[in-house]
């Protein structure tokens, strides 16, 4: 216990040092550029951030965007897992899914926004976009992860007629986990990036995207940076939570039998 606590503190020390390092770089850069309009200084941004925190509307915006983007993310995770698993089991599914996956990965938002907006209200555009951004990452990593599962263990499971559920939990999941973690780590950031971008297009009122857009449009650099930091903080917080949940599940799986 003590060891873990100690390690946690050292871990955080490293992280804080890294963040401080980059803030210093930022400060130096902003001094070098010398124009608040282009590159606001850390202090100015902290001020703007503090100002935001005290607004009631700020928390509304955060909740509004958070709920939608996170919804898209979880839908993508769920769909990615299910589709990845189905694709692995059936060649037909894999081939049928190949073209739409390519389309999802490749088609620029500009192309399908007209069609998308027929079916989706611009309020929910961020759900859709965050979903579409994360889905192919999860799907592709799932497929690779399942394929890289140890064949010898699967043969063993076949001989011993290990029930499908147990096979999933104790053979597939440990093998797929690193791929899944990588997909989540990438997807968690991307869903924010793309979800907010969708809000910048759709501008639903009381969304982070709308506030960000306003800040950009009127060259309110301090606020622009402050909102960006808010997005990053939420994203990191969200990533931490999800990763912790994943590792928790992973540990539970490993502790089976003891």
């Amino acid at each position, binding site marked *: 216990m003590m060891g873990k606590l100690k390690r946690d503190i050292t871990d955080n020390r490293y992280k804080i040092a890294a963040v401080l390092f980059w803030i210093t770089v930022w400060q130096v850069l902003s001094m070098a550029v010398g124009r608040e*309009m*282009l590159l606001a200084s850390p202090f100015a941004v902290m001020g703007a951030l503090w100002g935001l925190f005290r607004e009631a509307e700020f928390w509304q915006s955060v909740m509004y965007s958070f709920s939608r983007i996170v919804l898209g993310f979880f839908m993508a995770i769920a769909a990615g897992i299910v589709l990845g698993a189905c694709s692995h089991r059936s060649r037909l599914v894999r081939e049928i899914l190949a073209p739409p996956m390519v389309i999802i990965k490749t088609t620029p938002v500009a192309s399908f926004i007209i069609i998308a*907006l027929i079916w989706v209200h611009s309020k929910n*555009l961020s759900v859709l976009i965050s979903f579409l951004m994360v889905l192919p990452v999860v799907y592709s990593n799932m497929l690779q992860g399942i394929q890289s599962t140890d064949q010898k263990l699967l043969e063993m499971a076949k001989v011993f007629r290990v029930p499908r559920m147990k096979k999933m939990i104790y053979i597939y999941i440990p093998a797929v986990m690193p791929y899944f973690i990588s997909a989540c780590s990438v997807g968690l950031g991307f869903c924010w990036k793309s979800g907010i971008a969708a809000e910048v*297009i759709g501008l639903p009122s009381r969304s982070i995207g709308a506030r960000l857009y306003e800040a950009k449009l009127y060259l309110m650099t301090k606020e622009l940076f402050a909102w960006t930091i808010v997005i990053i903080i939420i994203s990191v917080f969200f990533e931490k939570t999800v990763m912790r949940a994943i590792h928790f599940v992973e540990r539970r799986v490993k502790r089976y039998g003891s």
Partner: protein
Amino acid sequence: SEGGNGDTASEKTTAETGNEETGEEETGQAEKMDISIAGLKGATSIGMVKMMEVAANGEAANNYKFKVAGTADEISAALVKGEIDIAAVPCNLASVLYNKTEGGIMLAGINTLNVLYVIETGMSVSSVEDLKGRTVYSTGKGTTPEYTLNYLLQSNGIDPASDLTIEYKAEATEVASILSSSEDAIAVLPQPYVTTVMMSNDKVRIAIDIQEEWDKISNDGSGIVTGVVVVRKDFLEENQEAVDAFLEEYKDSAAYVNENAGDAAALVEKFEIFKADVTEKAIPLCNITFIGGDEMKEKVSGYLEVLFGQNPNSVGGKMPGDDFYYLKK
């Protein structure tokens, strides 16, 4: 001291220009200087196409290098960097840039007045009053179209939040798709999207010219100002003559565009600003002009005041001071 600064910098510029002319002898007056000019794709750049053509043929007073940017961001960045000397930008952006650069940007003229129109597929709207209780589709949430529309509604005693529903769509194309699928939809769109929509859907007609409604409620000489020409202050102080010459040529160009919509539209397409067929129909409705001097100041300050009242951020947090306006003597 300002003049002194200007002088030294001016010398430097001349020297640089000399270098760029690849060793050509400095020949005083006859020498043309390089000026970088930028405009946005869309209505605010249409007025200068003739000048672009003239410059391309080498017949302009100076060497104009035009750039048509996709987004205002690009122009903002380039102005700040000093890569661009003169730019045609939306009116409020000029004020924002002025504030954010602490007066580094000056306003030289208005190039586009109102471009906003109320359009509909039915026959039910002929005045602002008629919008009461209806659903209106628009674009440009959080930008000048919203503030302009809100001001207009409020001035007519209509509360934009409760007396009607305004649905802001992400893109003009989205509004177009709604118009095409509804028998009596109302929308507020800027030119040349209005014309684009009308050309792809013949049921759409213009119901209200927002400028006319504006004129009804304000008699202070203000007006809707969509596009303006701005100059970098540094550049202006160093090259006042060249800027004046530019503005003269701009005026001619705007006049030419208004008189020869067809030829101008071809140029608009040539310079990749917009498509010719749409532009030709749109030009008469785009209120392309060139206004400088006190009239400019009056119109712009009145309009910025309105925007400021709606959202101070939209003009950069505070109203620009008098040094914002370049009033040529």
